[in-house]
């Protein structure tokens, strides 16, 4: 075994021993989030932004709103797209280059949570049906990887979207000319989906895993719910397996903790 693997094995034993006594390595309860700090409007050049600290994890989301063509099969809908950059500044395990499978999974789960709850009212983002719509870019820039990037990214994305200002435009259908005005509307938001992630270590289910916990976890489960209690995304991640009862527990807890986190997001605006 390499040094790293020996370390991981010792860490796993340590964490497991604590869990058997009902304790997490940083003293939290199994259902406790680490401290959440949200600063919005930190990037003036973006239409919306939020810098989120979740324990040692730091994530910055910037929202750019551009105009472009709608998808051919959805002529009456704006477009949203989510991208995650795991820049090597944020962790010794991140490497430069195009998004790897971790960045892609992260982006797609955050995206689904927002998209499937219709959190953004994309139908209100049409400028000219079939021709010109708003394109909302959600760019997640991970700055420090301290575990549970998924929840931090989902929180930052929603906080950024809820503070996004969209410049009004005038569009001349005949000439095709588009003029950006110096008036702004808030981005229309329907719902506030919040992902809640669980790490399974042995038989324990832990909310908001820290990096140490992630390093030794067996499996991961994320459930995204909104303020109506609907589920808009679920994702079992990594290896490991879950029992049906664990899924039920996670579902109920995700709704409860989602409400808790949602209030923090709202207070940050």
């Amino acid at each position, binding site marked *: 075994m390499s040094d790293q693997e020996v370390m991981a094995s010792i860490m796993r034993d340590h964490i497991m021993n604590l869990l058997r006594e009902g304790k997490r390595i940083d003293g939290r309860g199994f259902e406790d989030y680490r401290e959440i700090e949200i600063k919005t409007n930190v990037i003036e050049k973006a239409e919306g932004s939020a810098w989120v600290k979740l324990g040692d994890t730091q994530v910055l989301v910037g929202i750019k709103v551009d105009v472009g063509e709608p998808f051919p099969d959805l002529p009456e809908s704006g477009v949203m797209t989510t991208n995650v950059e795991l820049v090597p500044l944020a962790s010794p395990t991140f490497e430069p280059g195009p998004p790897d499978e971790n960045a892609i999974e992260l982006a797609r789960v955050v995206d689904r949570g927002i998209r499937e*709850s219709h959190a953004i009212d994309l139908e209100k983002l049409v400028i000219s049906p079939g021709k010109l719509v708003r394109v909302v870019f959600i760019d997640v820039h991970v700055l420090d990887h301290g575990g549970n990037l998924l929840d931090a990214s989902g929180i930052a994305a929603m906080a950024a979207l809820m503070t996004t200002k969209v410049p009004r435009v005038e569009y001349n259908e005949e000439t095709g000319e588009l003029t950006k005005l110096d008036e702004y509307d808030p981005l229309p938001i329907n719902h506030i989906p919040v992902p809640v992630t669980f790490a399974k270590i042995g038989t324990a289910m832990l909310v908001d895993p820290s990096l140490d916990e992630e390093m030794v976890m067996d499996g991961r489960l994320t459930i995204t719910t909104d303020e109506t209690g*609907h589920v808009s995304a679920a994702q079992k991640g990594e*290896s490991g397996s879950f029992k049906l009862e664990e899924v039920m527990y996670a579902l109920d807890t995700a709704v409860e903790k989602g409400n808790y986190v949602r209030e923090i997001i709202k207070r940050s605006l």
Partner: protein
Amino acid sequence: MMGRPEGLKLIDENGRRIDGRKKYELRPISMEVNVLKNADGSAYVEWGKNKILAAVYGPREIHPKHLQRPDRGILRVRYNMAPFSVEDRKKPGPDRRSVEISKVIRGALEPALILEMFPRTAVDIFIEVLQADAGTRVAGIAAASLALADAGIPMRDIVSACAAGKIDGEIVLDLNKDEDNYGEADVPLAIMPMKNDITLLQMDGYLTREEFMEAVRLAIKGAKAVYQKQREALKRKYLAVAEEVAGNE
């Protein structure tokens, strides 16, 4: 979810779906193992209009060496769609969807493998979607699991998989392409049936808590039905092998 054609009903007044199935009915499934010569194990699955080929190579040496794990083998999965497998030609090469699916399939199969038995090596699973019609990831898992068995890779259980979803307000089993496009949610799931261990669970759509759990339970049932078909396919192979051996004597 795409713009839905006007007047399209996914469940008719008799409770039948557009392909004639009942709510909890699987599409026709056929499975065959050992269909390729080069691969150490292989399987071909037709599941509705899905046509999927899976191959296993390994355990085999890993290059570059720094990827080797001294205490166990590693599993690598590549899910790939043929350019002609979908309505509009797909540009060859992995897109973001394929990368995510490859990753979750790896996570779905890994718990079944006893990787400690072949340290420093890799098991490679290649899943080629020759025709796609919704549910390719669960069909791919079913095929890959057969290919692993065919290759003789030591496993705790055969991983099986199925999806459930919501269309026209009802939770149904095993969505086809139209149902996936115009429905409300899709919940793909994989399971190790012997111990009821869920190894893949995703959700794409919008469901109440109750609907979500109903879909999960239904998908488990579907996966168990698929499990029986997997076992039969493996049995047929062993019978064929036995006959061949007997014939040679």
